[in-house]
């Protein structure tokens, strides 16, 4: 009897011990959530985009230093103020064998507008797409719009194949996904992983690995452990606490990169006492942002002095900003008529990092006599109620996905964008409005840079936000992985990755 148990136990251990070592031709990547849909015109979420950029392509791309480089369009020119003409790559085939032509471009953009895709706002300024010949297409705008190329580079503006979309019907995006990219869709096991294989007929440089598996592992610690145990080759978004633990682990590389994301505290400038710029400036002086970077982000962030993350090309990083200076803060509060401070509240959702920031700033502000209540509000309510202006102060982030200053400023500071559109601080400055309008219509990059420099300086002076940080992210890689280049927007392309 006893021996029988021992045998059973042995068989169990031998049979189940994890021997599933992935081969050098299979790259396994883990991210923090499952994709929602592989239809690029479906949801506009990061986990989906991270899979889709392997399958689909856009007319133009953001290079790794965020300049605009050719994609499915090999060249382009601006014909007049509102017309852009694109020459397309010839001989490109979709994964189903169909030839890629200008008709696919028109179909894709029409589809984005008709659905509408949640990211349709990115091409709001496009009035129509005109097929000139099979390899020439014109994009006609409603009015001059300088950042159009940056918008076309967004993964949500990927080109799809009409026949596949129509044949698949409702199965498109979950069981069928056909693009022109370096990887082809194989299968999606719901809740587990997406499997892709190398596109052997890819028009550009072919992918280095044969099979690409992208898994969703929601628990940060477990994702890090999977990397540590070799269950995955690359793990995205290693949390600060796991970064500390994994640093120095043999066989692992921790790769930190700057992103296009910022976190900020917004003031409701429509409400007292935040309608007084002195109060807003005082709070900017009172916050110890370096401490947030050190203790909450463990270095996975950098302090910023203005509204744009430094990676955005027109970002003005030499603005004086607000140093940590509680004395100056007290002085400004007294000047504003609040020598003894006041009572207020700060809103955050249940994001643990944001909750910690709120608590730290609660302590900072107590030092200058401002009594802050921290309110933790569920995400859905949070968006709704801050849009309605029910808040005093709130913590939120913004990702300048197009890497263009227009995207990073327009929705947040233009007075036409109050509420849900993005301007949750209800900030309005006629000169800033004017500059932001000029900035999106001016074609010359140098003039645009000057326009945005002035706008940023004004915004910093008016201080509708407390300017906090631009975040970094850490990817973990096994040391046999080469050729991985992180993309600042977070959707890393994996065709160049080699597994030794």
């Amino acid at each position: 009897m006893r021996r029988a148990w021992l045998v059973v136990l042995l068989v169990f251990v031998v049979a189940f011990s994890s021997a599933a070592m992935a081969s050098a031709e299979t790259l396994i990547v883990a991210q923090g959530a499952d994709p929602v849909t592989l239809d690029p015109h479906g949801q506009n979420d990061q986990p989906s985009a991270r899979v889709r950029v392997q399958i689909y392509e856009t007319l133009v791309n953001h290079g790794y230093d965020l300049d605009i480089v050719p994609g499915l369009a090999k060249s382009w020119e601006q014909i007049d103020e509102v017309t852009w003409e694109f020459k397309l790559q010839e001989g490109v085939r979709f994964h189903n064998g169909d030839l890629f032509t200008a008709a696919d471009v028109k179909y894709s953009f029409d589809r984005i507008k008709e659905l509408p895709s949640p990211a349709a706002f990115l091409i709001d300024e496009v009035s129509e797409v005109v097929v000139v010949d099979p390899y020439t297409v014109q994009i006609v705008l409603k009015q001059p719009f300088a950042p159009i190329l940056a918008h076309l580079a967004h993964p949500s503006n990927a080109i799809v194949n009409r026949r596949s979309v129509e044949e698949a019907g409702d199965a498109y995006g979950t069981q069928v996904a056909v693009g022109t990219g370096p990887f082809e869709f194989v299968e999606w096991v719901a809740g587990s992983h997406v499997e892709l294989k190398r596109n052997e007929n890819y028009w550009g440089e072919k992918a280095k690995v044969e099979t690409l598996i992208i898994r969703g592992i929601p628990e940060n610690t477990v994702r890090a452990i999977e990397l540590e145990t070799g269950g995955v080759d690359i793990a995205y978004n290693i949390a600060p606490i796991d970064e500390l633990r994994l640093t120095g682990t043999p066989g692992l590389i921790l790769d930190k990169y700057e992103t296009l994301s910022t976190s900020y505290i917004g003031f409701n400038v429509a409400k007292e006492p935040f309608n007084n710029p002195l109060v807003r400036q005082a709070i900017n002086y009172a916050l110890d942002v370096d401490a947030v970077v050190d203790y909450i982000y463990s270095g996975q962030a950098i302090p910023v002095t203005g509204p744009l993350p430094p990676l955005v090309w027109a970002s003005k990083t030499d603005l004086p900003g607000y140093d940590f200076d509680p004395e100056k803060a007290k002085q400004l509060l007294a000047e504003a008529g609040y020598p003894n401070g006041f009572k207020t509240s700060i809103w955050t959702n249940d994001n643990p990092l944001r909750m910690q920031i709120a608590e730290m700033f609660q302590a900072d502000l107590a030092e200058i006599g401002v009594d802050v209540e921290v309110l933790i509000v569920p995400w859905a309510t949070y968006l709704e109620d801050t849009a309605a202006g029910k808040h005093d102060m709130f913590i939120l982030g913004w990702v300048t996905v197009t890497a263009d200053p227009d995207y990073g400023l327009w929705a947040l500071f233009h007075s036409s964008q109050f509420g849900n559109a993005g301007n949750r601080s209800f900030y309005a400055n006629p000169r800033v409005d004017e500059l932001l309008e000029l900035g999106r219509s001016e074609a010359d990059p140098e003039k645009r840079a000057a326009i945005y420099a002035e706008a940023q300086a004004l915004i910093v002076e008016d201080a509708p936000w407390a300017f906090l940080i631009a975040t970094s992210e850490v990817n973990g890689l096994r040391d046999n992985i080469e050729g991985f280049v992180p993309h600042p927007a977070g959707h890393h392309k994996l065709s160049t990755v080699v597994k030794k």
Partner: protein
Amino acid sequence: MWRYILRRLLMLIPVLIGISIFVFLLMYFTPGDPALLMLGEGAPPEQYAALRESMGLDDPVYVQYFRWLGNAVRGDLGRSLRSKKLVTTEILDRLPATTQLAVAAVTFAVVVGVPVGILSASKPNSWFDNIAMVGALTGVGMPVFWQGIMLILIFSVHLHWFPSSGRMGGLEYLVLPTITLGTASTASIARLTRSAMLEVLQQDYIRTARSKGLPRRTVVFRHALRNALIPVVTMIGLQFGGLMSGAVLTESIFAWPGIGRMIVDAINNKDFPLVQGTIMTFALIYALVNLIIDVTYAFLDPRLRLVYE
């Protein structure tokens, strides 16, 4: 017997309708706007209005409910607001993983819990009994999250015996989630088996059996166990229902592609049709498991068969 089963099945209908109304209202009155969540920040107001209309969110709540109910009775639970997949497809995609995990966890709990309970009861207050019952208390009290991470640290990181997460292939992926999910049930079942056995072992007929000179093993297994098992079977049924719907934490820790993780995401995104459909599925499973348990009694205790006739 069959009439009894049929009657129980018919009683399911009002129960399910009641649950559906309750869940519908709950989702309706929870703050947060699904259209807003779908669009995220920075979307223009016209697009938001169009989306709300296309989702039917502007209709009164009873119109929305009856539209849902009308479709549901025809087997159409609608589409997920986010992925646009059929809710039935979403559920069927995820149900096998959850069922597999729940069955494995219950099996684990029974295979470990029942023998431990019997052994403890047959030698109460022995060292085995004391260790087992302290272990059971610990098992009930241990946070799932902590236990899961500890198992991963020991068996994946240090010993390399089992993979730490996912369901990427063979049964080796099932081991750690099963233990994590099954521990609390194992402990409850062990404790219940022990107390039920202790009670039965003091009955007169057991004394009779012993005094007849029957071997100890026969007395315990043939005479006592069968009677002690009735509350245990009830417990197993309840545990199974709970494990099906309560595997949320375990599924999250181990990135197990089950229904628990799906419903948490669905609730966070206010994906009404998906939440509604999933909870109805849970309710149905729970009710069916209870029915099966009730029928099982008849096999354990012939006296109960009369009640069902």
